[in-house]
């Protein structure tokens, strides 16, 4: 084993351990803010794994989109719904947890036996393309052109949908009653009360 292979192996093991530990942290931490930060650690270690798999463009996209956008969005959502509430304890909740853990472990065993028993025809004789960005760009504008354009429409739809869903209904145009000489400056838009759903 030469030096490059050793470095590869050590970083692979480090990144996998970091990823699995951080993923467990996302699921098991009581505090949701800790979960969000460990989610960022998961994303960063996955980006490192992509570099080990010769996928440099995907790794950069992973860091930019997941760590830079999705994780920050989740942190914003945590801040917006930041209500320190203690959830009401449910009876027999441990049965659910144990049965879910059992199902997850069984699923993992199933997948592991499938992975280990299949005869993968790994072909490492062909060298990877010199520039993966070039190859991905060629794919985008030749055989994956229609999904590429549809993705842009989907992003636009998601943008408009998110704005429509999260918008507050404000009352615009109704004058506030003036008491005294100067009207008190209104610092926030009056919000239309939502009728609670039973």
């Amino acid at each position, binding site marked *: 084993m030469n030096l490059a292979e050793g470095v*590869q192996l050590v970083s*692979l093991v480090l990144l996998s351990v970091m*990823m699995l530990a951080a*993923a467990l942290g*996302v*699921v098991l931490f009581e505090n*949701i803010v800790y979960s*969000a930060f460990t*989610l960022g650690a*998961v994303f960063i270690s*996955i980006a490192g*794994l*992509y570099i080990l*798999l*010769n*996928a440099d*463009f*995907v790794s950069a*996209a992973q860091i930019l*989109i*997941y760590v830079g*956008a*999705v994780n920050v*969005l*989740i942190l*914003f*959502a945590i801040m917006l*719904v930041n*209500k320190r*509430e203690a*959830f009401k304890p449910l009876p027999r909740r441990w049965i*659910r947890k144990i049965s879910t*853990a059992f*199902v*997850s472990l069984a*699923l*993992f065993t199933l*997948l*592991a036996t499938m*992975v*280990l028993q299949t005869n*993968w025809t790994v*072909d490492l004789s*062909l060298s*990877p393309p010199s520039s*993966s960005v070039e190859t*991905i760009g060629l*794919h*985008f504008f030749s055989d*994956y052109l229609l*999904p590429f354009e549809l*993705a842009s429409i*989907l*992003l636009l739809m*998601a943008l408009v949908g*998110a704005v429509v*869903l999260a918008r*507050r209904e404000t009352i615009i145009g109704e004058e506030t009653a003036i008491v005294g000489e100067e009207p008190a400056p209104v610092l926030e838009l009056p919000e239309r009360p939502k009728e*609670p*759903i039973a």
Partner: protein
Amino acid sequence: MNLEFFLLLAAALFCIGIYGLVTSRNAVRVLMSVELLLNAVNINLVAFSNFLDGQNINGQVFTVFVITIAAAEAAVGLAIILSIYRNRDTVDMEQFNLLKW
């Protein structure tokens, strides 16, 4: 560095995501678990693209698409959580029983 290791890693991440998706009570944590699931699939795609399809990397193209869809899903999902939080004044999954029969 072989294919099976990466596939096992992705399977473990997927199962952790399933566990979090089913058991967590905070709605934001459910969204985080969905992100874990999508990332497990992405690891699979990139590993297959590296080991089985090294010349024309179709798996990486699919991964970019999955990342795009995941970003859109996160935005819409968090908007839904925000609006349901305004309605019910909680993020507890056990109290979101509007569609319960």
